[in-house]
């Protein structure tokens, strides 16, 4: 089949045609972000503005606290990644290496919590965090990450199960305790799974909307995504500013994705295979 040249030409052309509607919205986003308001609506559309209006971006920075949004999003994405990596690896290690009462039952509970939608518990969680005085702070959006994520625990466990039991036994004979086995043997071997969990968590946190929408009210406290939603309400009709905000929101994620593509794609592909 691979020798069939005309077939591979057709395949290439179909993929090429299909990729146009996939990429066009992003080109339009960046293009609009560099236009004056009046030229956003002219037809035929200008995909590459002749005199790009870069000041849209500088004006955006004085219009909304976008610098704060960036810092908040970076903080949350980094802290959530660190929190989920640490907690999920520790818990997964417990489930794989140690034996304790009700281990199997607890693991089934862990699996079943994966299907509880966040929306089902978001109201009582809000009430709880409100009781802590955490509304309009970033705490509700990162503290829970240090208690593990069922999904990532499962992910790490599947990986840990491939590590030979012989390592554990040998380390025990050498007098190592479980904590030492964890960070001297398991952690160094888990580099790929750590990177994948970290990247997926970083992206999910960056893109997360519902949580920041509920908890953060003051503009300067918002994340870049909830801020973008705020901006599109405030600047409705000023598409050049909204698209400049959108471009800034997606840019870090695209750069991160370009650098770490291989990890992210193989991490996602692995999710399907783990089932």
């Amino acid at each position, binding site marked *: 089949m691979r020798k069939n040249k005309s077939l591979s030409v057709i395949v290439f052309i179909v993929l090429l045609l299909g*990729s146009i509607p*996939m990429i066009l919205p992003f080109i339009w986003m960046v293009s609009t972000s560099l236009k004056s308001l009046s030229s956003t609506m002219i037809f035929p559309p200008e995909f590459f503005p002749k005199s790009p209006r870069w000041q849209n971006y500088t004006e955006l920075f004085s219009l909304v606290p976008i610098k704060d949004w960036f810092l908040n999003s970076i903080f949350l994405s980094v802290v959530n990644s660190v929190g989920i990596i640490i907690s999920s690896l520790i818990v997964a290690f417990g489930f794989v290496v140690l034996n304790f009462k009700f281990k199997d039952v607890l693991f089934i509970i862990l699996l079943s919590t994966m299907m509880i939608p966040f929306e089902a518990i978001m109201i009582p969680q809000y009430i*709880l965090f409100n009781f802590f005085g955490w509304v309009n702070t970033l705490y509700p959006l990162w503290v829970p990450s240090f208690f593990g994520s069922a999904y990532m625990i499962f992910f790490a466990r599947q990986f840990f199960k491939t590590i030979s039991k012989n390592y554990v036994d040998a380390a025990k004979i050498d007098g190592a305790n479980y904590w030492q086995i964890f960070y001297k043997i398991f952690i160094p071997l888990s580099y790929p799974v750590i990177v994948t969990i970290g990247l997926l968590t970083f992206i999910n946190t960056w893109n997360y909307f519902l949580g920041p929408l509920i908890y953060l009210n003051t503009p300067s406290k918002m994340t870049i995504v909830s801020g973008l939603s705020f901006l599109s309400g405030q600047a409705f009709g000023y598409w050049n500013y909204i698209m400049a905000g959108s471009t800034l929101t997606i840019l870090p994620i695209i750069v991160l994705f370009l650098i770490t593509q291989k990890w992210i794609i193989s991490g996602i592909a692995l999710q*399907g295979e783990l089932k």
Partner: protein
Amino acid sequence: MNRRSKEGLLGYLFISPWLIGLIVFTVGPMVFSFLLIFANWNLIGPLKFTGLQNLIDITKSNFFWSALRNTAFFTLYVPLSVFLSLIVAVLMDRNTHGTSIFRLIYFLPSVTPAVANAAVWVWLLQPSYGVVDNTLKNWFHIQGPGWLTDPNLYIPTLMMISIWGSIGYNAVLFAAGLRSIDKSIYEAAQLDGSGVISTFFKITLPLISPSIFFVTVTSVIWSFQVFDLAYMTNSGVTSYYNITLVQYIYQQGFQYFHIGEASAAAWVLALIIFVITFFELQAEKKLVFYQ
């Protein structure tokens, strides 16, 4: 203390972060949320138990039913997306040039925030002066329909945007399934004179049925939870009857402070997802072919 019970204690120590989180952030809130179904509360005043009143109220609420209907209708994008993603995955598997660039382009909308994706689509689909309507008007002399403003077209438009946003992600999952197929099976089929089409239907499709199943079920579950896209496209522009289920929960809970009704609707959502998951486990045994 003997070795065994010491190990048991250590085991609990290692899983304690999850165990504490489970009680504080999941089980506790779930129990509380279940109790709230039977209560009347606005977060500030006193909490009053009102029996089944909230359930009666939501079953009488047109907003709730249209939210449920809209969400169920919206999930129909999943089979379309699965079908198109499968085509993209098969084509990419066959493609010889520029596959990594194609994968990047198709995957892009899956990795960028849904809020930003929605923002650009709202702009593209602006009535009359958006680029889509402008193109239709100037080149084809067609008056663009109210993509996001016509109540009948609103959900189909969201479906279209979601297909765009999910093809790349699903195709990556299918591509992994395709790669795991033993190539010698294809060679054997070729020797038997099987054509491209019949090889696809008789060999490829059954062998990646586990991936298809996984993608379909997880996508249906996600689509029941659609929020970002609906929130961004529907803030005041379209009628309130065009909300989705999570939007209904959000509005009732965080805009009107009808905590009881919001909790009841949240449990309906959870129940739907439990039921889907249950049927998934049942159907998986019958429908899916494991290599």
